[in-house]
């Protein structure tokens, strides 16, 4: 990818302006524009080997081993045979190459898939079905409904009036609503006339390819006339054509030059904090290696001086080698020998472990969502252990915490509350799946999916109580929903917000069926009788009004105003006579709000004909006024919406996903902070905060920051900070900077007594994220238990994540389901997508995907924790094992004249990491668990060590190294002393080098095996097999290597012939092995035992409890959700955008009910029904901010491999 983008960058540097002529391939070919074929693959059959090897050797570790290999080829230096390095290196290169090859094959496949999509192209006056990749710049192509846009096109004509087309840009910028593009009239007039289109020879001059999605400039010259082109005429690749039968377009940019592709490949390559630490450590190790080698080189210099020069009778120096030069050579020889401190297998093993642990995530049944048949998926296999270190979770609301399903749950009509199921004793019953639902058979038009449990309401409807009828009449009349009736009596509602859909559906089921509308009328079926109401006025919703009204004339000619809105708004406008009903209804509202339901109050008013006529006149004047139209209208609305009669209230449940409050509770128990970042309104967000138990009544304070200028925001944050922590300084305390060369300061975690919450809205957040205020915001937010940011744009979501990443040494996780979460998912250390929902954008750019929010708990507390634990155990053990192995050489140097003589047999050195110790440690890292998942849930505190990096840190590494030094001393000096001047029991030699080597390496193998046993806390049969198998393997291989047969085939390669049988039959050898391995391990046992006694960790405590319990504990008791005391009232929970009312009353809208262009280009959210399809997220769809950070999302190969593509960036 990088290669090819660079190529293009070079080639196209000079392209200042793009010129092309429609239907003139020859002319266009002269510019050598890119064709529409895309290529995300890196290799082909011939380039694979050289390119892949070249890339692999760019990795530091591989390059290091290549250098070692080269060093080994110099005879004067070579202290080890070539095969000790070549065998592991080849193995590693081969494995990586195999992985890269499969990845690239997949990329080829998906490239082919995309390139072979078919599209109609106008060639030689005929429409021909061509593959995408054969489309050229300048071609005219025809798109059909629901087709992907093939390339960046200039829209020529469409099937729709005014040459409009509707496109969905979700894959480009993450917005799910439709956008409108309009062709120039001059081209639009061609329509679908093939002859005219084929004869079209317009010339386009436009900007060169770039990645700005929101901008385009160019001109079209046709018939001598110049027309200017802007973004409004352009269809970008990656969009989908919707609600448009067909359209024609002229290809401007193809394949790699499209704006979509220009936005690709900027995904940052994510690495885990363990990776980063490893890099530092590896550098330290290299430094340490250099120090060791220097010491040994100096030792060699001294030895050569004092002994070597006298010893020249038997050990003559080569020509031109003096003591100093010999020391120089020795330095390099020891670099070769001691290279095992950073064994190449380390990196391979880490990858294998991560891969294994990723598979566990894919395989986990407890994270499999049966309803949607979606298992969890680890889309990235390199970040597992990071899941065990999460400190901050940033969550989207809609679709993530909630199901984005609104259900009509309860209502209060004329002072009576409906919706609860009461048993014969008057006790309220818990509603479960088995509770009997209301039978809708009386109503043929009912929506069977709608369920309601309280039969009394149906009875009330059947009793024809006027209030109840008015209540539902209001619901069926006062809304902006569109109805579609494809088959008779099969109604499909298209609601702008799921709330409205729920209300209208409720009315429908209770016998007030909204059937159709025209701009002037609404037709409903009232208890089986069709009636048409004249729609005289629609007083639309706005954020300030928080209510909407309709004025209708009934078939009987009665004028009536129906109003629904936020209770606060309605109550101010009620008639005095309602005061008693108000009190009762208020009680109900409080009750509903207390249960986390979204409430609306409903009211109506009969209108006087005369008065209304006057009002209507003024309304007409006002709505055509050129100045202050809004204000004038508002005044008129105010005027008529008063002295209303209260009807009752509705309560809609914004259904949380299963287990969300419990999950949040568990995560906060694990010291994970959850911030909700949502595009929703503040009230809705707060509401959800309460129902998720994130905000609680008993919190000491909840700060709401909703100021509109920077100073106020600053002041509010400062106040919050001072309330939480009186006397908190202006300046944050910074952590002492420790990491290498990083200039970023890190803010210390502060502690605060009490629980606080912070709610901040998008406007304030924009100021809070300003450079001068961000620190204040961060400090205040981090002191709070809960942070909710509402009305935030996708860009702001990412900014919040970046802010925390920048100043906190903490691992962040972002979880979301929609395209608006893509930026945050990419920004966070770990991105989690909710799968199985409408869009796949979030999932495609995520690292992990789960079907439900509640699986996050298992993903973090079980998989994350285990992965982290395993990785850390692995690293600690791996370093121990190799340091011990290597340091023995260091001690031996003092007894072999610093000649870089290895202690072990070369075969042992080759096979130690690959064969003798590879599987046991892999077994540990794939199977180990300190306590099982049930206990992990029971004690979420077990997660905390991960956040604090306790299992593997510089200190832990240093301890490892010290332990290794001790072990290596024992491993060398015990055999040394035990074998000194001794002989076999038949008097023959045993203190020879080969026997000594065998003895030491056997001790080493035993020691590391026992040490592994100590580390391992979960011995499965596989582990046993691996450990014992490896020991057996060691002896089998050793005896085989030292056998006559091997020697006779290659005498030079197997010089250790006979050593095993001559040495391993001696009791003193075995006694030495026993002593050495026990002595290496016993102090560790004692130290650990004492540590458990004196300073037990949380793990020790829980493990002890597990032992005590023996059996698994009783199923964990989910904390029953506490009903909140109802002191607060929920706000108006309408998630409309303003201005929808205009559409309802406009003619254009009705021709094609789904979407409507209103004044100019202001776009509207579109949702189809209230099935979990629509999004009520309310960030401004017209704002330009979110386009600054475009999310490339084509559901093709582009993302799947983007992580791999970027090493070289």
């Amino acid at each position, binding site marked *: 990818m990088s290669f090819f983008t660079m190529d293009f960058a070079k080639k196209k540097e000079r392209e200042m302006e793009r010129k092309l002529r429609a239907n003139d391939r020859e002319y266009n070919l002269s510019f050598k524009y890119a064709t529409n074929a895309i290529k995300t693959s890196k290799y082909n059959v011939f380039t694979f080997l050289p390119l892949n090897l070249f890339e692999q050797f760019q990795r530091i570790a591989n390059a290091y081993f290549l250098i070692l290999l080269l060093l080994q080829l110099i*005879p004067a230096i070579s*202290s080890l045979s070539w095969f000790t390095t070549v065998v592991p290196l080849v193995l590693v290169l081969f494995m990586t190459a195999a992985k890269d090859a499969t990845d690239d094959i997949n990329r080829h496949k998906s490239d082919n898939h995309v390139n072979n999509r078919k599209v109609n192209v106008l060639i030689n006056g005929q429409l021909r079905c061509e593959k995408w990749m054969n489309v050229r710049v300048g071609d005219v192509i025809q798109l059909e409904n629901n087709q992907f846009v093939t390339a960046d096109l200039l829209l020529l004509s469409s099937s729709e009036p005014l040459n409009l087309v509707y496109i969905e840009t979700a894959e480009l910028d993450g917005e799910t609503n439709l956008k409108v593009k309009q062709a120039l009239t001059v081209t639009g007039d061609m329509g679908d006339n093939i002859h005219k289109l084929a004869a079209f020879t317009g010339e386009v001059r436009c900007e060169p390819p770039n990645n700005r999605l929101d901008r385009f400039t160019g001109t079209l010259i046709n018939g001598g006339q110049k027309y200017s082109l802007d973004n409004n005429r352009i269809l970008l690749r990656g969009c989908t054509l919707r609600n448009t039968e067909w359209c024609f377009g002229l290809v401007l940019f193809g394949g790699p030059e499209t704006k979509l592709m220009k936005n690709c490949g900027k995904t940052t390559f994510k690495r885990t904090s363990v990776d980063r630490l490893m890099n530092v450590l590896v550098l330290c190790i290299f430094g340490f290696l250099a120090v060791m080698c220097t010491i040994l080189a100096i030792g060699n210099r001294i030895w050569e001086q004092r*002994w070597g020069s*006298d010893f020249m*009778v*038997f*050990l003559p120096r080569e020509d031109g080698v003096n003591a100093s030069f010999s020391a120089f050579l020795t330095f390099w020889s020891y670099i070769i020998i001691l290279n095992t401190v950073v064994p190449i297998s380390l990196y391979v093993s880490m990858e294998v472990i991560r891969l294994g642990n990723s598979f566990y995530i894919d*395989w*986990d*049944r*407890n994270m*499999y969502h*049966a309803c949607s*048949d979606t298992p969890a998926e680890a889309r990235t296999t390199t970040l597992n252990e990071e899941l065990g270190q999460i400190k901050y979770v940033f969550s989207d609301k809609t679709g993530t915490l909630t199901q984005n399903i609104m259900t009509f749950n309860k209502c209060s009509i004329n002072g009576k509350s409906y919706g609860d199921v009461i048993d014969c004793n008057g006790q309220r019953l818990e509603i479960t799946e088995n509770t009997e639902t209301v039978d809708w058979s009386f109503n043929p038009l009912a929506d069977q999916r709608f369920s309601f449990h309280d039969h009394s309401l149906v009875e009330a409807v059947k009793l024809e109580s006027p209030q109840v009828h008015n209540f539902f009449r209001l619901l069926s009349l006062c809304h902006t929903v569109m109805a579609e009736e494809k088959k008779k009596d099969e109604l499909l509602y298209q609601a702008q917000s799921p709330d409205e859909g729920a209300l209208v559906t409720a009315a429908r089921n209770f016998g007030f069926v909204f059937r159709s509308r025209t701009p002037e009328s609404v037709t409903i079926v009232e208890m089986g009788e069709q009636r048409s109401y004249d729609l005289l006025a629609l007083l639309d919703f706005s954020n300030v009004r928080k209510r909407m009204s309709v004025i209708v004339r009934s078939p009987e000619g009665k004028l009536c105003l129906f109003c629904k809105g936020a209770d606060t708004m309605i109550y101010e406008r009620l008639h005095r006579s309602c005061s008693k009903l108000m009190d009762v209804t208020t009680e109900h509202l409080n009750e509903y709000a207390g249960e986390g339901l979204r409430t609306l109050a409903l009211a109506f008013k009969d209108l006087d004909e005369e008065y209304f006529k006057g009002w209507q006149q003024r309304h007409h004047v006002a709505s055509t006024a050129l100045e202050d139209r809004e204000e004038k209208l508002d005044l008129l609305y105010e005027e008529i919406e008063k002295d209303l009669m209260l009807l009752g209230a509705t309560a809609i449940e914004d259904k949380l996903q299963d287990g969300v409050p419990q999950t949040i509770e568990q995560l906060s128990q694990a010291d994970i902070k959850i911030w909700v970042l949502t595009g929703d309104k503040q009230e809705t967000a707060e509401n959800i905060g309460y129902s998720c138990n994130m905000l609680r009544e008993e919190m000491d304070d909840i700060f709401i920051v909703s100021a509109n200028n920077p100073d106020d925001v600053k002041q509010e944050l400062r106040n919050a900070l001072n309330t939480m922590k009186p006397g908190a300084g202006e300046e944050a305390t910074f952590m002492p900077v420790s990491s290498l060369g990083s200039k970023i300061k890190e803010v210390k975690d502060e502690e605060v007594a009490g629980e606080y919450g912070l709610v901040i809205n998008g406007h304030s957040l924009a100021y809070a994220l300003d450079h001068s205020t961000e620190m204040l915001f961060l400090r205040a937010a981090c002191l709070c238990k809960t942070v909710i940011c509402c009305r935030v744009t996708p860009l702001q979501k990412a900014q919040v994540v970046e802010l925390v990443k920048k100043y906190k040494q903490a691992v962040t996780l972002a979880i979301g389901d929609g395209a608006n979460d893509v930026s945050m998912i990419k920004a966070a250390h770990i991105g989690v997508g909710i799968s199985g929902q409408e869009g796949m954008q979030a999932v495609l750019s995520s690292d992990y995907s789960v079907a439900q929010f509640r699986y996050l708990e298992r993903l973090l507390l079980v998989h994350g924790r285990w992965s982290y634990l395993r990785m850390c155990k692995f690293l600690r053990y791996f370093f121990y094992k190799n340091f011990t192995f290597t340091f023995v050489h260091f001690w031996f140097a003092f*007894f*072999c*004249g610093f*000649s870089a003589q290895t202690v072990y047999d070369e075969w042992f050195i080759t096979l130690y990491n690959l064969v003798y110790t590879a599987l046991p440690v892999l077994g540990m890292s794939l199977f180990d668990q300190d306590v099982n998942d049930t206990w992990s849930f029971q004690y979420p505190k077990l997660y905390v060590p991960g956040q604090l990096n306790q299992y593997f840190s510089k200190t832990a590494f240093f301890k490892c190294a010290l332990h290794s030094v001790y072990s290596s001393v024992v491993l060398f000096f015990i055999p*040394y*002393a*035990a*074998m000194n001047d*001794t*002989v076999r029991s*038949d*008097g*023959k*030699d*045993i*203190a*020879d080098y*080969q*026997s*000594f080597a065998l003895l030491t390496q056997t001790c080493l193998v035993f020691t590391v095996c026992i040490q592994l046993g100590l580390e391992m*806390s*979960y*011995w*499965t*049969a*596989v*582990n046993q097999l691996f450990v014992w198998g490896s020991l057996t393997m060691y002896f089998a291989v050793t005896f085989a290597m030292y056998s006559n047969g091997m*020697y006779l085939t290659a005498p*030079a390669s197997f*010089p250790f*012939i*006979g050593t095993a049988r*001559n040495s391993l039959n*001696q009791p*003193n050898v075995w*006694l030495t092995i026993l*002593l050495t391995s*026990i002595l290496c391990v*016993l102090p560790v046992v*004692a130290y650990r035992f*004492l540590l*458990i006694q004196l300073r037990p960790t949380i793990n*020790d*405590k829980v493990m*002890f409890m597990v*032992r005590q319990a023996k059996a698994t504990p009783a199923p964990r008791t989910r904390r029953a959700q506490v009903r909140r005391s109802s002191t607060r009232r929920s706000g108006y929970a309408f998630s409309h955008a303003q201005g929808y009312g205009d559409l309802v009353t406009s003619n254009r809208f009705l021709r094609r009910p789904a979407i409507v262009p209103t004044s100019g280009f202001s776009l509207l959210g579109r949702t189809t029904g209230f099935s979990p399809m629509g999004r009520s997220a309310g960030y401004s769809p017209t704002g330009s901010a979110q386009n600054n950070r475009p999310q490339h999302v084509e559901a093709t190969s582009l993302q799947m491999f983007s992580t791999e593509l970027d090493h070289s960036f």
Partner: protein
Amino acid sequence: MPKKELETANRPDNTAFTQQRLPAWQPMLSAGIVIPGFVLIGLAFIGIGVALFITSRNITVLEMDYTGVETSSDCFKCSAGTIPNCLCNLYFTLNDTFPGQVYFYYGLTNYFQSHRKFGVSVDAYQLSGDTYYFTNPLNVCAPYQFVNGSIPIVPCGLSANSMFNDTFKLYQLVNVSKPVPLDGRGIAWWSDYNVKYRNPTTTPLKNAFNGTIKPPCWPKPAYELDLTDPSNNGLVNQDFLVWMRRAALPNFRKLYRRITGPDYASGLPPGNYTIEIAYNYPTMIFNGRKKVVLSNVSWMGGKNDFLGVAYLVVGSLCVVMSIVMLIVYATFKFPEDG
């Protein structure tokens, strides 16, 4: 039913492995295991230590330096290395019987046979009797690959060239010097003698060495190492094999002969002895010492007090440690409180 299958097509398998529920043994460092474990290991080690220590103490070793550093030594005259074929004597007296099978070793100190170059500079093919390598020794043998750049050395290499070439004869002084029979057969490893080193099949052996030259330090060529016994000659000479099994540490001893003969089968009787040494090997220049060692062996090999002492110390430490741990455990009693 196919519909139902379809619905759960993605459901992961429910196996103990995929669900990470493999049955496992979960040991823990609890007081009930650790403290008794330490006591047991401690006691066992003390037991082994006592046995080893007593065994080692019962092994008799007689070690005599004959480098000739002191002027009083008979070998002083030879130590300068100026007299060719210098002979010197080493006298010693045994007051008690030297019991058991007695082994005759020579020892060297400060001698870095463990130096990497000794290990490298060997031609395994040549030593396994491949005559091609007689005329074409491997480069690793340099600088003892060729003499004058063309005549190949057999056996080539540093290791072979530096072969120890002092010889010893042991006499018991009973009125006259009565030679004590020394057996040089079977002093090398069976595998070295039978597999690793081979003579070429050429007969006579000497012909195989045509066109080659002896290593510079050797007084005589390989095929003349033992003219009396063809099976101990050439590249399978036992002394050569013993030498080629290079020592791991700078101070080492190597088996020279076994003391045999009907009179000495159960040990050397008390009395005066002399060792007649053909002093050839230079060690003074690199401050090395040459020793003669007489020793008998036990089941645990030669005399080595270290192992016994180490077992005793470690065993005692274990016992002490277990007491400390018991005290700590009794004091803190984790985790009853936690």
